[in-house]
């Protein structure tokens, strides 16, 4: 069978309204970024909190955080997404359930589920990085903080965390990149992010190699640019002479 190569396909009409296929990719990329950034925000805040909990001298807090990490790391992302999308709404109180199922548009409810899912999933990973970062600091730092009269929360906010975050930027970067890649699972609950738009283009236009090549290219460029941004941040916040560990 012959395959009709047609790289101009992206500028052809989709037959729906005045849209060309490229518009679909732009919309898809928009969703991908919207999912990833909000998910990352949740992951960073919750993950840092959990990471701190794992290192404080309190059994209960540490156990809670450890349990969280074990659960969210050992269940496949897709299963988690289905749980958030199909199961959790049924468990909500009546008014909330109605709001989720009836008031929200299909896209909005899918978006909400995937953002929560990715945020909580990635938080478990961020937690482990934060914990590693804190534990990599010399023990004397904690004591020095105490010796100056700081309370434990003050020691964390003024001494430990500012250092820990600097040294875990490389592993955090890779988690940040992962959330962009993982956001593609949203296509499986019907959210038209980048991968879903690619699939749709491939099916509508029959130019599947072109569609997937473009998608690959977009992910590749996205990945590279995010990496450069993170490197820039790493340099900006670098403190001369501060140890650097991790990196993997």
């Amino acid at each position, binding site marked *: *069978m012959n*395959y009709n190569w047609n790289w101009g396909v992206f500028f052809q009409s989709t037959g729906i309204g005045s849209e060309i296929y490229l518009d679909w990719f732009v919309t898809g990329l928009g969703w991908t970024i919207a999912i990833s950034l909000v998910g990352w925000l949740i992951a960073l805040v919750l993950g840092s909190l959990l990471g701190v909990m794992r290192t404080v001298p309190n059994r209960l807090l540490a156990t809670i955080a450890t349990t969280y990490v*074990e*659960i969210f*790391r*050992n*269940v*496949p*992302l*897709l*299963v*988690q997404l*289905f*749980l958030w999308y*199909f*199961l959790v709404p*049924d468990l909500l109180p009546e008014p909330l359930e109605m709001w989720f199922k009836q008031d929200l548009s299909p896209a909005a409810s899918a978006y909400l589920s995937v953002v929560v899912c990715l945020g909580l999933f990635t938080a478990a990973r961020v937690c482990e990085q934060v914990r590693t970062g804190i534990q990599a600091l010399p023990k004397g730092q904690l004591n020095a903080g105490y010796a100056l009269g700081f309370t434990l929360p003050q020691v964390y906010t003024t001494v430990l965390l500012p250092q820990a975050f600097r040294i875990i930027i490389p592993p955090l970067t890779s988690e940040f*990149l992962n959330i962009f*890649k*993982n*956001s*593609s*699972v949203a*296509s*499986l609950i019907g959210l038209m992010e980048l*991968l879903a738009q*690619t*699939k749709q283009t*491939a099916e509508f236009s029959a130019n*599947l*190699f072109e569609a*997937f090549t473009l*998608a*690959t290219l977009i*992910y*590749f460029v*996205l*990945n*590279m640019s995010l990496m450069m941004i993170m490197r820039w941040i790493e340099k900006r916040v670098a403190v001369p002479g501060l140890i650097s560990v991790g990196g993997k």
Partner: protein
Amino acid sequence: MDFSAIIPALPGLWIGMITTLELLVLGVCGGVALGTALALMRLSHNKTLAKIAATYVSYFRSIPLLLVITWFYFAVPFVLRWITGVDTPVGAFSSCLVAFVMFEAAYFCEIVRAGIQAIPRGQMGAAYALGMTYGQTMRLVILPQAFRKMTPLLLQQSIILFQDTSLVYTVGLMDLLNAARSRGDILGQPHEFLIFAGLVYFVISFTASRAVKHLQKRLAV
């Protein structure tokens, strides 16, 4: 919630589980083999080979696995037709397996590369000094040591792959998750079956990671 319907469905779920495990085992074997070849290319003195391997790795590491699975599902039949000239039906299983092998190889490559680089340079010299060829040096001296050192990392990556096999849902392959989803839908108990599938994944992954951590501690001593 009523989990009693799961027991009669177990044989069906087990068939799904077998598909999951087949994907896992074949994916790990193929991925490690291809990944090792890529690692040797990346470390070779031949600049072209090194460059090809490096590009391969950074390419596959920057795109989502789900994209690779979807693409290969569409593309593998096409490509085969180009090569062989005849229509060869390719099942979802084969295209998913190819996707896993090629995708995971990029990750295994980096693990193997680090493992080889962790072996002292002198070992290579000693093997050469005994008259071994490059192939013998790698096969008999360097790789056996490197694989021993990186076993925990390889296993960790395999656990990730175990979880990632659930993504074959996208092409409708009946793995554990999909078997549970479809049975749940048929029986009108989607939640129970979903929770059950999640539990199975959890128990296996959790136990396996515990075992790997244990192994890591033993190797570290």
